[in-house]
């Protein structure tokens, strides 16, 4: 079966111009039908087209599938977030919405679509003196750059939409360009409070760019490549037969993962860093003058950013589409990716349900005084780790000990120094 498929795969997956990554000649789980199921479907649909058309249609198909999948995920995520946060708060969450105009209740599954219809039918107000062109372009630009970021995440063994040599840089370039749209939104509203809030949002985004990028540099250093597929493939081994070689299971990788996670929380404007969009902060911040569908687009862009950053975290630190144990590879690679992505997104929601919001000065202080030094030290730890990769036997223990000290020491030390002078809270009841 697999050998019969190879000629077809060679034609469709051949060369640089294919829509999906070229098939590697690796055997094993790469050959199982379940693993290649998306490719088989795609070849079934477009295999009969002549060559340049097939590449165009394949690319368009990849774009549409990724977009639709993440749009559906966005809808379900809004519902899942509400239900998760509700359960933490001892209440059930939305559980009534189902199919409209009937009494069928789907346990709340119709809620995202109800919200979407509500947003669509709201009146689209643009203030009279606002800059109409910029006001319209801001959500468009934000959404465009957020969707661009999905192109380089490997969703499965053969499922990366665009194979780039400098994929990680592309991802962060797309993310950096979204900050421009935040400024456009705040400026175009012709509302000095919106502008102020846009400046604060921008300050937050720029402050957390640095820990985000710095926590990714050790991964690139150890993996030796900027390509996301390369990074995932380098995490494919198992130490001692059961411990996956994911980056998160190394000292510098664990620290890097936590730094990336915190910086991703802030980059996506998620609680506890959701100062720009909190209701008690200058109304809705830079989104005050937006209503209806444009507001929904802003939220969509925020959730897309969250999903993209989670996808990148899974790729860089959690082994991408690799299975955690060798015998668990019956679940195809895209299944493992989806599971890890959902776990990270649940982590985002868990954190939102738990922690109160940070003030702007606490936010920026955390970024510049805590995360950036830790990320720089983490870079050093990763350099040490990669330089001592050839140590074996008892030297391995020394390697782990030194790396752990380099990770835990500065964390505890910086933490002590920064929280010096603040005593544990005492409550006095009058």
């Amino acid at each position, binding site marked *: 079966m697999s050998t019969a498929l190879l000629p077809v795969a060679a034609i469709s997956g051949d060369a640089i111009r294919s829509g999906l990554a070229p098939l590697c000649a690796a055997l094993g789980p790469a050959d199982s039908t379940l693993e290649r199921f998306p490719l088989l479907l795609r070849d079934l649909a477009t295999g009969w087209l002549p060559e340049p058309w097939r590449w165009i249609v394949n690319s368009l198909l990849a774009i549409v599938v990724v977009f639709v999948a993440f749009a559906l995920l966005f809808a379900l995520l809004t519902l899942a977030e509400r239900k998760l946060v509700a359960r933490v708060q001892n209440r059930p969450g939305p559980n009534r919405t189902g199919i409209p105009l009937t009494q069928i209740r789907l346990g709340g599954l119709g809620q995202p679509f109800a919200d979407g219809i509500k947003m669509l039918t709201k009146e689209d107000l643009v203030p009279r003196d606002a*800059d109409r062109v*910029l006001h319209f372009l801001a959500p468009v630009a934000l959404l465009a750059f957020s969707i661009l970021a999905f192109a380089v995440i490997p969703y499965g063994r053969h499922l990366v939409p665009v194979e*780039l*040599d*400098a994929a990680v*840089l*592309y991802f*962060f*370039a*797309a*993310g*950096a*360009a979204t*900050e*421009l749209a935040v*400024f*456009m939104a705040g*400026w175009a509203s012709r509302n000095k409070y919106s*502008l102020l809030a846009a*400046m604060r949002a*921008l300050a937050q985004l*720029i402050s957390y*760019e640095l820990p985000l990028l710095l926590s990714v540099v050790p991964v690139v250093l150890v993996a*030796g*490549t*900027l390509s996301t597929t390369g990074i995932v493939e380098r995490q494919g081994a198992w130490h001692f037969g059961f411990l996956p070689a994911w980056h998160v299971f190394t000292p510098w990788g664990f620290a890097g993962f936590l730094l990336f996670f915190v910086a991703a929380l802030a980059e996506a404007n998620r609680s506890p860093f959701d100062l720009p969009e909190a209701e008690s902060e200058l109304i809705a911040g830079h989104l005050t003058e937006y209503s209806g569908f444009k507001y929904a687009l802003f939220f969509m862009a925020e959730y897309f950013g969250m999903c993209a950053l989670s996808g990148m975290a899974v790729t860089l630190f959690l082994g991408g589409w690799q299975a955690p144990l060798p015998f668990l590879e019956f679940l195809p690679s895209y299944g493992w990716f989806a599971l890890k992505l959902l776990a990270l997104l649940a982590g985002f929601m868990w954190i939102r349900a738990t922690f109160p919001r940070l003030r702007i000065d606490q936010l920026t202080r955390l970024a510049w005084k805590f995360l950036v030094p830790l990320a720089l030290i983490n870079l050093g730890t990763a350099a040490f780790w990669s330089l001592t990769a050839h140590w074996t036997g008892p030297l391995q223990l020394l390697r782990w000990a030194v790396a752990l000290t380099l990770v835990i020491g500065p964390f505890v030390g910086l933490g002590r120094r920064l929280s010096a002078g603040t005593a544990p809270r005492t409550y006095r009841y009058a």
Partner: protein
Amino acid sequence: MIVAFATIALFTLAAAAVAMTLRNLIHSALLLIGSWLGIAAFYLWAGAEFVAFAQVLIYVGAVSMVVLFAVLLTRHSRADLSVAPDAARRVIPALLAGGAVLGVLFGGVLSTPLRVATPGAPAFGVRELGRLLMGPHAAALLILGALLTVALLGAMVIAAPSRREDGSNSPDPS
């Protein structure tokens, strides 16, 4: 190939030209950012992926913020944002100076014998770029790094609140 080149060129030049002529300073800044995106498209067209993404990351992601913050923080009111040429007298020397620069650039481009790229030229990967930067060009990289650090420190010193004689801090009047 040439169609793509012409389209990108047209877009970049149009963005820059309109950025020059618009009254609204923020619109000009945003169009300038658009022209930087056009330059990134040029790099992509030429196959230099790394430089293209670096251009987007640095220019559109960071320098644009600097430009916009600078514009916003130095305008006293919204009325200040509209700019217009001061007088016709200043347009003529400006055009002459611009024309001179353009002439020098054209002369340089036309007089250089450009090697025609062989079809199927090998993609210059990130790894080779890294090796070149850390090898033969390491000195330049380190000097640039030192220069940027000095610039950053200088900016912080200029922007820091000045300490008066009685010891209280006062923000720099700007």
